[in-house]
């Protein structure tokens, strides 16, 4: 995704430490040709691009979601393509907050998974902030205080963000969101 550094996938991969050796298999879901909704099952609205493939080792599936309707079977198609190998975990990088809950529900419909959500903040310290926690506001304040602003504009921005966090609008701080999911038995696998 254009606003994120090239090593975002490597950074996200760190969150999956403990699941053993894996290869990363990346996909992208993006808007294809516009068609009438019609019968969504037979007219896929979106393209899938698989652009890295390695052998038959266990894999971590990474998905960049540029646009997603959630009805065209994109996730099922991805998992269909990788069924020959064991999927140890999956993550999706999503631009819009409104898609996150739908994606989590869809994943849980496909398989029992332990899912978590993070906010992606590409500001001075590129951060992946845990959102599925009651400590969300404390952690967001901590991240905000890591940055140093001395200009008037910077200080105004700081206080606006502080107020957004206090009013529970912290999701507006993020340029994207990350959903991670591991199948329930894998969540507590041998490290």
């Amino acid at each position, binding site marked *: 995704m254009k606003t994120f550094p090239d090593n975002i996938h490597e950074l996200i991969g760190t969150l999956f430490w403990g699941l053993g050796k894996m290869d990363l298999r990346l996909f992208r879901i993006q808007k294809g040709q516009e068609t009438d909704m019609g019968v969504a099952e037979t007219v896929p609205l979106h393209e899938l691009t698989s652009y890295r493939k390695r052998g038959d080792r266990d894999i971590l599936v990474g998905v960049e979601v540029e646009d997603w309707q959630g009805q065209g079977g994109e996730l099922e198609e991805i998992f269909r393509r990788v069924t020959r190998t064991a999927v140890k975990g999956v993550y999706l990088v999503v631009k819009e907050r409104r898609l996150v809950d739908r994606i989590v529900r869809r994943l849980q419909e496909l398989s029992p998974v332990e899912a978590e959500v993070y906010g992606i903040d590409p500001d001075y310290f590129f951060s992946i902030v*845990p959102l599925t926690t009651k400590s969300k506001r404390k952690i967001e*304040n901590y991240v905000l205080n890591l940055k140093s602003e001395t200009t008037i504009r910077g200080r105004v921005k700081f206080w606006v963000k502080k107020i957004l966090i206090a009013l529970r609008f912290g999701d507006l701080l993020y340029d994207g969101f990350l959903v991670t999911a591991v199948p329930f038995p894998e969540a507590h696998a041998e490290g």
Partner: protein
Amino acid sequence: MLKHFLKKNWLEFIGTPTPAEIQLLTITSCPQFYGNNIILVFVNRRATPICVIKACRNPDFGFKLKREYSALRAVGRMDAVGRRVPKAYFLGEYEGRAFLIQECIAGTSLFKEVRRCGLTRRTKALIDQAVDLSASVNGTPPTGNKRDALWRMESAFRLSQYEKEFIEAGLSGPRLKEINDICSIDRPDRKSYFSHGDYWQTNIMVHEKKDEIAGIIDWEFACPWTPFPLDIFWFLINLAYCLYDRTRPGATVAESYKWGFFVDMVYLEYSNSLYQRYARQVGVDFSLFWRYLEATLAVMSVRELATYGRSTNMDHVYIDLLKFTMENRKGLSLD
């Protein structure tokens, strides 16, 4: 998942009972291939992290984390400073990449404080404390296993291996020989210093509620036998940077260096007073201020080349500043 990996091994890694809840904040301030991924670990609804995991991005740079682990263990045993360095909990490897778990020191960096407030009575007191801490570390012979990574040869002092770069920049002759001599590590008669190696204001944490230094972090470049007092000069070079950047945001290291040491005589006198404060405690020669400053620039240039190759260009920046210093410091007196 990393979270479960931590929970499972918590007692072995940290030595305390496993917390009920763990949350991970992943950050990276240095996206280059030689940088580390930093994972801050929050537990049980605390507002600040309890520990930090540094995960090496590239297996070739794992030695930095190994050196840091070794340094933290050595400095942690020093009476005057021990409580002001993070506890090193665990050093391990995962999929060939080194990772280090250490205590997280709460607070704000001295860089932020000085940049925000400038030189006030409070920040000057903090700067004095930072200088005194540096003197304590530098002047204490380290103990520990000499086979540890900390004692591995620091190639940044082998200036002769990079002589070509200096000659290409127009530096040669007796002045370069003088710097070479200062940086020589092959002189058993010469005093050596245990240095932090990257002692600048971003690595010095200030307590949130008290006016005191809470801790010193990032010991990746620690060296137990530095041939001259590198830390204080690196501190002074970067103090100029955070002061100049305050009034002119976006200023470069080069611009602030020239301003601090050649334009603003007030800063030059202040930095010399800090050096004298340091020198009295460690027992170094006041008159070598400029030579040590030049040696610091030379070593930093070589370190950039030796560690990162030409990927950063900072080696050229420091060599240029070295040349500038040599050409312009005649006539400037601090006596």
